[in-house]
């Protein structure tokens, strides 16, 4: 068996030794250097831009502006953003090109002989702006005094989902208790190791070629083709090694300007490649974030613990452009009622434009925000009802055959009850209280035992696997079998991106298993639109599920050809999962997804009541992966997700004031260090097969992130009796909450 083995990652050697090329490492010899220039303006109209001083620099080769972009618009799901903000745009874009709606709107791409000269050229640009009032946050946006996108509808709240299910009056009448609160969720920065970078050049077949690190080659290809108004045979997108993504590479950064520069310069006979590398500050300022938002929730339940009604109104800050807000919002909408059977529901979820950094894809894709609300509500209901929070969940959980919040049956293979019970048992929930002696207190500032409180918390969640809401989901694979009498070598061509999660290793394990050959005989050619088909993105926990199914299909096709005597035997296959639906705009009725993942977490916490420092001891993460193709890689995903969620819940505190990020460096944006992360993460891998998954696989990469913040808040409540409806749980926030609740400061 190859599936189920802890194979060493195929990219491990190159990454450990430094041989692997990331985009920043690509050959700089003889290359030109590009500098993306940000507007620095949260909201302003460009009045004039003078590039002559920059172009007068003998080492500056070219300055590309809005006037150079044939179709000056882009966007993954709506073309609402100019490629370059500026004047004299001749393209056909609907969105005004001369307005900067965000401090990192790109206004120019300066190409020069050296990185220093490109910096000089950028500094020499003379730009005149007419200031416009900046829409700083959701409240400001909802007043609609200033419109971020006047071309789009009649409000900054530009996208809405609704659910109308059952009879709310009956639901409230039935309820013995009601829990109602407003929750505030923060931005989060992806903080991947490798900032945005890439190289643009003309390849040997004359194609404009962009080598970058992204999540979906064909999407980037499509965006370039649209902006440059070119056909598919003219452009090629290739991925190098990718230094983390987490959703942060789903939208464009350097792709379009690199293609633009390579194309335009080649027309002038300049064929040197153009290389560009963003600094950390540029990366933090220049790409989208996990959405911040505010959600009001009111839930009712009977005294025996049956949920009777869920009402919720939520807002996510889309920032200046849609990016994937409409999809993220949909996911928040589906998860804000939790993984429970809800008879009566009234849920409104709004996406709101502001002049801040766009919200977009980030591991969990709306579910962390939704789950924080749902699980906090559930834990408060449990307290109010005097019912154990795990027991309360089991009484309401979605199960096989359940009708979901969108009033259709969930896809088969609902394992939420088993996952909740699995986490309960694994964590010895209810039998083992958290002990101070088991928990380290904050290491660099020791606390006395009598100033430390401890607690345990529980939360669970579910999230879709694969694209939702009727998006045309598919995944291509091509398998070639070489040999005479026996299969000596099997080659996979696949577009699925290995963003660091180990996807390519899992692909080859599944291929070896499917083809019935030793893993040493399989190899892969990945992520090149010149040779691989469209596999969709590395996102939505979908790759193992989708790619696995495509590989199974292509391998079967190749095996047939092999039996027919073809040498090499080639199989091409496009896997298409069951269709999903857009939700009814008024009632939310519809089948949004074809598969789900399920997860539960129990967390042990210690808090220093004088400083507000939180330490997390043990985290038990029970996650149903359907079938573990490579258990070690799954543990890596669980531990990584928990650590990333730990930063989200406790320390990462992006400060955005009047549209400007105040802490774009890691000295001020505090991702957890090795001494901050939980003492122990128990990756409790459940294997309850997804009936449609390849080998039973479920998607899992996002799941362990999702319930963490709610579990930590529940543990903090268990420790102190105080609920926190907003995070990150920085020491100052925790201390303020404790003091407001009457904790006295013992000196």
């Amino acid at each position, binding site marked *: 068996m190859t599936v189920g083995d802890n194979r060493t990652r195929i990219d491990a050697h190159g990454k450990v030794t430094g041989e692997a090329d990331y985009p920043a490492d690509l050959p700089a010899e003889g290359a030109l250097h590009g500098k993306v220039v940000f507007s620095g303006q949260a909201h302003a109209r460009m009045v004039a831009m003078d590039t002559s001083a920059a172009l007068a620099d003998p080492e500056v080769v070219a300055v590309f502006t809005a006037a150079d972009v044939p179709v000056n618009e882009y966007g993954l799901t709506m073309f609402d953003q100019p490629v370059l903000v500026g004047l004299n745009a001749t393209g056909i874009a609907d969105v005004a090109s001369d307005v900067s709606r965000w401090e990192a709107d790109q206004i120019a791409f300066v190409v020069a002989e050296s990185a220093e000269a490109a910096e000089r050229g950028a500094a020499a640009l003379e730009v005149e702006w007419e200031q416009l009032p900046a829409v700083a946050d959701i409240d400001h946006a909802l007043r609609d005094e200033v419109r971020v996108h006047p071309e789009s509808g009649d409000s900054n709240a530009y996208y809405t989902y609704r659910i109308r299910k059952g009879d709310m009056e009956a639901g409230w009448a039935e309820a013995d208790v009601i829990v109602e609160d407003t929750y505030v969720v923060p931005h989060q920065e992806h903080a991947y190791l490798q900032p945005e970078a890439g190289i643009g050049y003309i390849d040997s077949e004359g194609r404009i070629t962009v080598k970058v690190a992204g999540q979906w080659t064909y999407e980037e290809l499509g965006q370039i083709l649209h902006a440059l108004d070119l056909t598919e045979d003219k452009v090629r997108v290739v991925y190098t090694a990718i230094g983390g993504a987490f959703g942060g590479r789903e939208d464009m950064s350097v792709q379009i300007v690199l293609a633009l520069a390579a194309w335009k310069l080649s027309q002038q006979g300049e064929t040197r490649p153009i290389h560009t590398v963003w600094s950390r500050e540029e990366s933090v300022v220049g790409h989208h974030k996990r959405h911040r938002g505010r959600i009001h929730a009111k839930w009712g339940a009977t005294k025996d613990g049956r949920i009777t009604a869920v009402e919720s109104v939520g807002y996510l800050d889309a920032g200046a452009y849609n990016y994937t807000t409409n999809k993220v919002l949909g996911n928040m909408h589906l998860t804000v009622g939790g993984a429970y059977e809800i008879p009566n529901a009234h849920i409104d979820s709004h996406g709101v434009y502001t002049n801040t950094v766009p919200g977009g894809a980030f591991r969990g894709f709306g579910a962390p925000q939704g789950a924080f609300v749902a699980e906090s509500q559930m834990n408060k209901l449990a307290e109010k009802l005097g019912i154990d929070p795990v027991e309360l969940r089991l009484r309401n959980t979605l199960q096989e055959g359940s009708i979901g919040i969108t009033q259709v049956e969930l896809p088969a293979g609902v394992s939420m009850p088993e996952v909740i019970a699995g986490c309960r048992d694994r964590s010895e929930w209810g039998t083992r209280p958290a002990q101070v002696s088991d928990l380290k207190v904050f290491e*660099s*500032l020791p606390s006395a035992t009598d100033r430390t409180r401890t607690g345990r918390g529980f939360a669970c969640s579910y999230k879709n696997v694969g694209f939702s809401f009727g998006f045309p989901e598919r995944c291509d694979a091509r398998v070639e079998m070489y040999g005479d009498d026996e299969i000596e070598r099997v080659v996979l061509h696949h577009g699925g991106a290995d963003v660091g999660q180990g996807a390519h290793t899992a692909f080859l394990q599944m291929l070896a298993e499917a083809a019935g050959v030793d893993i040493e005989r399989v190899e892969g050619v990945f992520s090149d639109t010149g040779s691989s088909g469209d596999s969709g993105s590395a996102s939505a926990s979908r790759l193992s599920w989708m790619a696995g199914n495509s590989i199974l299909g292509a391998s079967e096709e190749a095996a047939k050809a092999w039996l027919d005597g073809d040498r090499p035997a080639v199989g091409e296959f496009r896997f298409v999962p069951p269709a999903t639906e857009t939700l009814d705009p008024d009632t939310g009725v519809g089948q949004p997804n074809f598969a789900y993942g399920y997860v539960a977490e129990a967390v042990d916490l210690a808090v220093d009541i*004088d400083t507000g420092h939180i330490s997390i001891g043990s985290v038990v993460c029970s996650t149903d992966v359907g079938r573990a193709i490579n258990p070690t890689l799954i543990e890596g995903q669980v531990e990584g997700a928990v650590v990333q969620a730990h930063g989200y819940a406790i320390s990462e505190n992006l400060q955005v004031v009047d549209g400007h990020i105040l802490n774009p460096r890691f000295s*001020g944006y*505090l991702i957890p260090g090795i*001494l901050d992360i939980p003492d122990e993460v128990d990756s409790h891998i459940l294997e309850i097969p997804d009936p449609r998954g390849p080998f039973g696989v479920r998607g899992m990469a996002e799941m362990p992130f999702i319930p963490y913040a709610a579990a930590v808040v529940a543990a903090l409540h268990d420790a102190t009796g105080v609920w926190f409806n907003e995070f990150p749980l920085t*020491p*100052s926030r925790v*201390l303020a909450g404790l003091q407001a609740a009457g904790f006295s400061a013992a*000196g």
Partner: protein
Amino acid sequence: MMYTAPVTVDEACQLLASNSAAKVFAGATDLLPQAQAGRRLEDVLVDLKRIPRLMNLEVDDQGWTIGAAASAARLAEHSQLRSEYPGLVEAVALIGSDQIQNRASLGGNLCNASPAADSGPSMVVNEARAVIVSTAGFRTIPIADLVRGPGETSLEPGEFVAEFQLDRPAARRADAYLRFTPRTEMDIAVVGAAARVAVDDAGRCTDAAVVLGAVAPTTVRVGGIAEELVGSTFDEEALARCAALSSEACRPIDDKRGTKEFRRHIAGVLTTRVLRLAAERASEQR
């Protein structure tokens, strides 16, 4: 920009005297990030680490002499320094990562004059002295007079700190340093607190002092600590009064690392904890 690395104190003094655009540095752990953040570097950078006297670390009956450019790692690994000034060594060991520890120096940490510098409170509470040198010769000042405000020292043009001096501590005397950061490591103090405590045979306080960092433009020596504690056994009530004195003595600012109120509160918490820690250490020396 010119890099130069003199090997004697005299040579370095001459370089500074002859070039007003010269600046000394040791580990460059502040200089490089500042340059990366866009600050223009001085025309002449004088590396002090090749000068043996500035890398010196020695102790005799008179006291300690610590070269201004000696690395933090070297101080942290010196077992006798650790046993005589555990708080100072704690403070120095908190600066940056392991890699930074091998570059950073006391001289750099103090002369960068950040209000949040970890070594400041410990050096002041232990009444260290700075030996300053220029072509005009040597002069020695109390460490509390070295830093005047954020980024500003009392050094005159052409001067640099050659070394620091500390007395040998008396018996039953010890120091301690604690700092508050949101993150456990690799972070900058929101509040730092150093304490020095002396006790008698019965564990009663005979002397005590607290100096705070990151709560004002310079380190703050909290007044009235000795008056509250001398004669006490560091009981809760006395410590609580000391905490209140510290909160009161702060002159903090609101910034993205913390509010004024939060800093005042934490200064009090740290005062209690750091005095208790120093008192335990002093008593153990009996």
